[in-house]
């Protein structure tokens, strides 16, 4: 007898949005290393993701899909199930950044950030959960949010709102999907690579000194946390796990 209170099993077919570079690509590689199948999409498929798909044609599906294109997303999910089998996990990673004061951000740009970082991930989670439930299956969802959802950082008003919104939705989904899905967020701090592109070395040194762990966050720090949420039986559900070297404490 299938008891719905049994632990939800490890992920077997994982959809990763924004999986072509940086953290998304590192997550894709790690899922593969764990032996699961992965369907990754991004607006642009990088040579790195293409190479993974070519090396593992039976375990990796890669496509160029805009996360805000609902029709294309649904086609991609259908193709994923036809090629790799029933989807049972999602890493909602795709997002666009912001670096502008709120008073100088156009209404159109604010709407675009909300569509990409909040509406699209909600619709993607809805589509994946509908597929999981229609088959009577269970699954796992990981939202990649940000420490910005918890602390104020200048130049990131709309971005922070979307990440906070996603964390809130995550908690409600975790409750709503009672026994059918584990839903959690991983909230990275600022990556060293991101910060170095907008900050000078002196500022970077100051931030690093103020970080209790003594170092800024790298994608490699986030990957094991996502791995645990996708594969381990931890009973972690409805939580935001912040990975920022303790900078926000």
């Amino acid at each position, binding site marked *: *007898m299938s*008891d719905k209170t049994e632990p939800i099993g490890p992920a077997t077919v994982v959809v990763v949005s924004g999986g072509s570079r940086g953290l998304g690509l590192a997550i894709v590689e790690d899922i593969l290393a764990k032996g699961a199948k992965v369907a990754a999409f991004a607006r642009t498929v990088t040579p790195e993701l293409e190479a993974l798909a070519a090396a593992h044609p039976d375990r990796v599906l890669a496509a160029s899909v805009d996360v805000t294109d609902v029709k294309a997303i649904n086609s991609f999910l259908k193709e994923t199930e036809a090629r790799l089998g029933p989807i049972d996990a999602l890493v909602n990673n795709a997002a666009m950044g912001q670096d502008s004061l709120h008073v100088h951000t156009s209404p159109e740009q604010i709407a675009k950030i909300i569509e990409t970082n909040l509406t699209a991930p909600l619709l993607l989670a809805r589509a994946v959960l509908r597929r999981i439930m229609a088959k009577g299956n269970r699954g796992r969802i990981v939202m990649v949010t940000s420490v910005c959802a918890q602390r104020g950082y200048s130049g990131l008003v709309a971005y922070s709102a979307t990440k906070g919104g996603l964390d809130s939705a995550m908690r409600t989904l975790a409750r709503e999907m*009672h026994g059918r899905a584990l839903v959690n967020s991983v909230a990275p701090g600022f990556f060293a690579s991101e910060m170095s592109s907008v900050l000078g070395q002196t500022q970077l040194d100051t931030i690093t000194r103020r970080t209790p762990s003594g170092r800024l966050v790298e994608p490699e720090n986030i990957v094991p946390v996502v791995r645990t949420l996708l594969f381990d039986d931890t009973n972690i559900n409805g939580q935001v796990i912040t990975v920022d070297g303790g900078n926000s404490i």
Partner: protein
Amino acid sequence: MTALSRDAIRTMMAEVLQAQGKAMPVDDGANLEQIGFRSLDFSELALRVEDEIGEELNFDAPELRQIATISDVLDFLEQLQAA
């Protein structure tokens, strides 16, 4: 859209229960709580019906809270298809 018959929905409901090792009672007046058919089981059934008819059946939670028996489930899904 070709609507599913009451019998076809009943068969699907039995399949949802069967997948959990539960039996579908003969009596449509049976209470859902007693047979272990929960709200997410209803969602699963609605999604299976959607798959068959090729159309989404979206509804608000208060409507779902009125459902107490197998008969209520079948009535509700018939109404949703007709709406």
